[in-house]
């Protein structure tokens, strides 16, 4: 079986890339070992956030945010998106200075989406924050979406564009040929294509080794939690902190989704995650300090998903320097959800040999080798 482009990984990055390529006339086959949305794409915290991103990602995030509004047209679903301003709190003057500097830096680069706000505005946005908070930095256009719905909408849209999505189909062998690639799946079938895209998320470190282009992507199990309904506690505003680990997302139903970098031990081979209850105790302490009213809240559930991470916490997006015809889009380090729409677009551009909308130099696959030298 033949296609122009073979994409391994049916998560958001794989499907976003597939949709764009199919719309530009390419035949695409997606190989998904489980089902779309089984791992990080469908089980992340749902934050659609520009706030607080690494500067290297900002141009992409700002453009991507516009694309989130277009989802009803582009993927025939709103993906459950709604605006919930993301307010990053300063808990002391030193942190406030960090936030002021960040805004100055962003402004100097021409970005105005993050705004320093005083205590009055903090209290207007989030009336229940603790007394020690001194100010904040807010992105009014940030929001939340439903990751499972988004993953399924992307997969369905890809299907409508003629992309062949092979679910429960594991790629077990890749051969590099003079004309492209030969893939063998666990059921013994062989697929051929000129171009190969690695969008295997948590598995992309391992998969890239199989391709002869090893990447330093390591797996992690970001751990999220959710509280019972706490009506009016968040006032629709999501919160982050400047000096400590915590992200509190104001879900529309009144529950609070807790994220912000908690991790659990895991075994990628056995696909098993042991949710570390200490993460709950740590998060709870900080939550009560920041929103004292949460002492009456309950933790309802934790969950975790496999994600691919890199040491410098920005992804790998680009063509392989080792294997011609191979492209990577992986290692989003637990904040790729918001970036999926724009990544699909720039990936399709570089696969077609076009200039990407934004330079991808910071995300080069070989950037780690250069550091060693």
């Amino acid at each position, binding site marked *: 079986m033949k296609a122009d482009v073979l994409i391994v990984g049916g998560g958001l990055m794989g499907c976003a890339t597939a949709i764009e390529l199919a719309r530009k006339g390419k035949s695409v086959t997606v190989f998904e070992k489980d089902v779309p949305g089984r791992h990080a794409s469908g089980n992340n915290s749902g934050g659609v956030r520009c706030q607080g991103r690494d500067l290297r990602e900002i141009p992409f995030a700002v453009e991507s945010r516009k694309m989130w509004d277009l989802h009803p047209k582009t993927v025939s679903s709103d993906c459950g998106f709604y605006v919930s301003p993301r307010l990053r709190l300063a808990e002391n003057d030193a942190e406030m200075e960090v936030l002021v500097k960040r805004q100055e830096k962003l402004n100097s680069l021409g970005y105005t989406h993050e705004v320093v706000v005083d205590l009055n505005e903090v209290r207007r946005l989030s009336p229940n924050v603790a007394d020690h908070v001194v100010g904040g930095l807010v992105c009014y256009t940030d929001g939340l979406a*439903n990751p499972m719905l988004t993953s399924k909408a992307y997969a369905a849209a890809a299907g409508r564009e003629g992309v062949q999505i092979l679910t429960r189909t594991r790629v077990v062998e890749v051969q590099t040929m003079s004309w492209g690639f030969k893939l063998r799946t666990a059921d013994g079938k062989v697929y051929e294509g000129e171009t190969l895209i690695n969008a295997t998320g948590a598995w992309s470190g391992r998969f890239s080794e199989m391709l002869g282009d090893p990447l330093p992507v390591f797996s992690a199990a970001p751990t999220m939690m959710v509280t019972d309904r706490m009506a009016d506690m968040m006032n629709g505003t999501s919160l982050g902190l400047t000096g400590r680990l915590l992200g509190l997302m104001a879900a529309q139903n009144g529950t609070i989704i807790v994220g912000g970098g908690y991790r659990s031990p895991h075994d990628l081979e056995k696909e098993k995650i042991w949710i570390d209850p200490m993460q709950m105790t740590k998060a709870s302490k900080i939550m*009560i300090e920041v929103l004292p009213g949460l002492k009456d809240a309950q933790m309802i559930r934790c969950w975790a998903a496999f994600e691919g991470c890199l040491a410098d916490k920005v992804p790998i997006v680009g063509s392989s320097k080792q294997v011609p015809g191979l492209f990577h889009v992986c290692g989003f380090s637990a904040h790729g959800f918001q970036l999926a729409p724009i990544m699909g677009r720039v990936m399709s551009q570089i696969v077609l040999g076009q200039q990407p909308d934004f330079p991808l130099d910071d995300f080069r696959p070989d950037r780690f080798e250069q550091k060693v030298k």
Partner: protein
Amino acid sequence: MKTKYDAIVVGAGPAGLACSAELTAKGLDVALVDEQSSPGGQIYRNITRATVNRHNILGSDYSEGLQVVKEFTEGGGTYLPRTRVWQAEATGDVYFSRDGYSGALHGEYIVLTTGAMERPVPFPGWTLPGVMTCGGMSNLFKDSGLVPKQPVVICGSGPLVWLVAEHLLALDAPITAILDTTPISQITAAMKHVGGALKRFDYMMKGIKMIAGVEAKARKKKVPLHRNISHLEAIGTDRVERVSCKKGARTLSFEASTLLVSEGIIPNTSLLRQVGVKHTWNPVQRFWHPDVTLEGRTNLDSVFVAGDGSFVHGAKSAEYKGRLTGLTIARELHRLSDQQFAEQSAPVKEKLKRELLPRPFIDALYAPAKKLYALADDTIVCRCESITAGRIREFIAEGYVDHNEIKAIIRCGMGPCQGRMCSSAVFELIAEGSGLAPETIRQHRLRPPIKPVSLQELANAKVGENDES
């Protein structure tokens, strides 16, 4: 507080008590952890504090539980009441909340004796105040002698229905109807197992006597008793006011301010699933049962399961299963030689075997009727999030066949009960709508904490912090 033990036993019902007693008798260090404030589990709930009058009403089957409580108490094992376990791991770690703080215990072995729960079956009006389970009613009586003073209807299938009817009749509660939903066809189906059951003639007679007693007393008190009932519905605005149902083509209606329902008992497997015990679909009980050997072993070396949590067999069987598990762990920890184990376990196995003789008959007779889950589209399935059967069917029609995915999108099973009340029904809806064989459908996953824990309790954790990764 001491945190390391040879074994942590979760649940102080007959299985947990017997298992802990066996282990302490062998000189092992055991902590028995339980949510309630006194030992006994659900079946022997509040047994050490119940009044003589309550013992008289509940009968000798209840009072017999004092034996195993005494055996445990005199054995001197550590007993941790009012302690809610919300996560366990195969490493032997058990996480709990107690008196406003959370903490961790560690056992070389953990024994999960989590008991049984009533099979949650949605029906129109089941979310109305005043609707509760027969087991819930039984607990209220055991705890505080509470008896309904207003009109009450009892409806369902299984021994618990007759037991609660017997108690409420004895207590002169104003019962307006007793409704048995067991389909006639199942009586015929069960008859092929009657031979085995009759080997426990005493047991069968007890059941027959109980039902006959309820029938006689109901007749005397002019309480209507109907069989082969279907289409149960609770009707009311702010709480249940009437109960309607069908008997063949006839519609029956009764006044009620309390409706007691029971559609059988299933193992309470929340903690078992969270810890990673393997489960297998049981097509007769229409439930995922844990894979547990007679001696309590699971797929996880350090995790044992005993009592009704492995399969509902009743209080005496639970006690025997608990004993066998205790003996097995004692052998693992070299407190019993193989020969001693064989000698001590043989009589327990013999008693358990006898106790299990009538089960195939009872299980066939009271197997969940398939039509139980023939839910109307407007019936609420997920109580926490008010999701109807119709809404779930829409997603199944779109091709969703995984409760976990449906949950992530429309939140059924995402509330505080973590799907305890809706997962059986959602599973049946998926099987109905997809045509897939039930055993091939992905089970609903459980994540810790299996029960809500307050943030304050978590923040007050009395455990060391892990290194940041």
